[in-house]
């Protein structure tokens, strides 16, 4: 592989969890629920996936458990925010704290270790498939694992679901104006639950990418702020899956630059700031869109 191919491959590798995470956040913010809890759902997904793979040695089962774990903790978020009308950010913060604290506790109980699990199997790159033989883009495509292709499929499906189906229309309507949605007979509470559960499931998948594909062990705090970045990117993209995926890849590019230049003479922290500064500036430039739909945090009976 030449240098350009290496950079592109690394960019894609860095951006897969952000793509999945921003898809998760889009579903949540499209139904008017602040997606601040994404970080905790990611952490839970990563941990549940790791636990399942460690005991069953089956990666697909691990993926399933990551999705279930993320969905389970998002159910708590929905219960707090939708049923009991707790401030969305506050409930998101408690989800984040719970994700970290609970995985730290179970990590200690199960593996008697502070910080990381033992190694296990993980998703491998598709180096030996037909992909590697494609000229030019082959090496880049073969350098990814299967989750990248799942992520792409999810982006396309999300776009179709949100913009081309009646279900997506209802989902968006609940986020824009829950009162109007309620008056035309949409069950807004159920829609919000569906949106938050989808958010948790996809965030769990994003977490699984971290613990089952990027690494072959679980490390505490391995989501490392990616949930927050996903939230911001989902909002900057105006809730459109395609735009959000594009911005995620741009973020991945800066993330990749950061890891390339870490060995250079300049202090590594400056390079690490770049992705966050980029997101911050994007959020400021795009602030009108980045506020999410009009009915953010509102309930139909407020």
């Amino acid at each position, binding site marked *: 592989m030449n240098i350009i191919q290496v950079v592109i491959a690394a960019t894609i590798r860095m951006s897969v969890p952000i793509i999945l995470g921003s898809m998760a956040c889009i579903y949540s913010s499209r139904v008017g629920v602040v997606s601040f809890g994404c970080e905790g759902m990611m952490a839970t997904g990563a941990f549940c996936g790791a636990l399942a793979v460690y005991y069953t040695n089956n990666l697909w089962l691990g993926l399933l458990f990551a999705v279930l774990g993320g969905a389970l903790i998002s159910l708590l978020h929905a219960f707090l925010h939708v049923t009991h009308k707790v401030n969305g950010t506050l409930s998101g913060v408690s989800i984040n704290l719970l994700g970290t604290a609970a995985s730290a*506790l179970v990590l200690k109980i199960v593996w008697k270790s502070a910080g990381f699990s033992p190694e296990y199997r993980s998703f491998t790159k598709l180096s030996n498939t037909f992909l590697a033989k494609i000229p030019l883009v082959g090496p880049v495509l073969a350098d990814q694992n299967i989750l990248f292709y799942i992520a792409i499929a999810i982006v396309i499906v999300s776009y179709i679901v949100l913009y081309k189906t009646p279900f997506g229309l209802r989902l968006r309507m609940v986020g824009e104006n829950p009162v109007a949605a309620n008056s035309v007979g949409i069950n807004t509470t159920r829609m919000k639950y569906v949106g938050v559960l989808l958010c948790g499931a996809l965030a769990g998948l994003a977490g699984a990418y971290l613990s089952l594909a990027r690494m072959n062990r679980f490390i505490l705090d391995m989501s490392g702020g990616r949930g927050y970045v996903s939230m911001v990117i989902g909002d900057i993209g105006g809730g459109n899956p395609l735009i959000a995926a594009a911005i995620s890849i741009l973020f991945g590019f800066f993330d990749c630059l950061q890891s390339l230049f870490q060995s250079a003479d300049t202090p590594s922290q400056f390079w690490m700031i770049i992705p966050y500064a980029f997101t911050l500036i994007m959020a400021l430039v795009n602030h009108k869109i980045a506020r999410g739909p009009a009915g953010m945090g509102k309930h139909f009976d407020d």
Partner: protein
Amino acid sequence: MNKKKFFHISREQWKRALNKVMVSAVSFIASIVIVGIVIWISGYSPIETYVSMVKGAFRSQTSIALVFSEATPLLFTGLAFAIAFRVRLVNVGIEGQMMMGALVGAIVGHFVTFLPHIPHVFFTMLIAGLTGMVIALFIGFLKVKLGANEVIISMMLNSIFTYIGSYLANGPLRAKVTGVAQTEIIQETALLSKLVPKSQLTTGYLIGLFIAIVLAFILDQTVLGYKIRIAGNNRIAGETYGIKATKLYYIAFMISGFVAALGGSIMTQGPITRFSDGAVAGYGFQGISVAALGAYNPLGVIFSSFLYGVLRAGSYTVNRTTNIPYEFVDVIQVMVVVFVSAPQIIFSVKKWFKKRKTAKPKHLPDSPAPAPDQNQ
């Protein structure tokens, strides 16, 4: 002319306060029970654990000092979160503001050499506090003027500040002697004096108490506090009376940033004595739990931070003597936030029990079910 009564508390206010205390107490007990079940499932005795925790926390003078020194940073972040939440703003930037306070405290504490002891201590705290205030003002400015989302900006700034602090501790400010990435120890004149010798408890805790009382006074007895409460409880009603919510957002956010950064500086001037990577990490988000348990009331925060201090100090003992990980304290703290912010969970359980009781003697098939009491 009748004199204005200070601290006059009506029966209605007593009732409301008692209700809040009940919610906090029940939430705390419920969390302890749930985590106790987790401890029990993982093969330890929950009662023994809790007893040895409390015993460990109050074993000696040193361990009681440890309780209060653990409570100190939580007191500050709890106050910072509570005051911002009074105008219904969730200040997730406390983490970054506290870190910058600790960093500025380390810089001013080390490089300012010409001041005597007491002025130096207060000068350091003031500069650190103002730093946090400016950060909060900046976030508030972007929110009010540009309409940006304060949560997004705060989170991104938290990450950026963390890397700036890490850069300074690794690069220009790195101490020469040690191999670890940390700044030089601050001057003796900037250090807070110790309340209990050979412990980490400093006069910083007293400063925290003082600030809690001042904030409680402002909230309950002044016009500003009245406006803050109105803007938080019913923004539209307040604006009808000419109480501008945006101005109060600024003020509450600035107080919040000041208190958070002050807490960071007091950690540097007290137990830590220097700045390093992740020296005050995590306190900001724990403050949310402290504020929630304290019912977002400055005086309540004093008690809740003390309670968490007992839990933390006791968990060290438990962790030393048994194999039970001290992470379960974190889980207790999170469960408290969940229960306090949705007390209806507890009430719905109570209602469910009541329903079952009233449903039992239902032997007449055509009598309607008793309607749930609306006042409860």
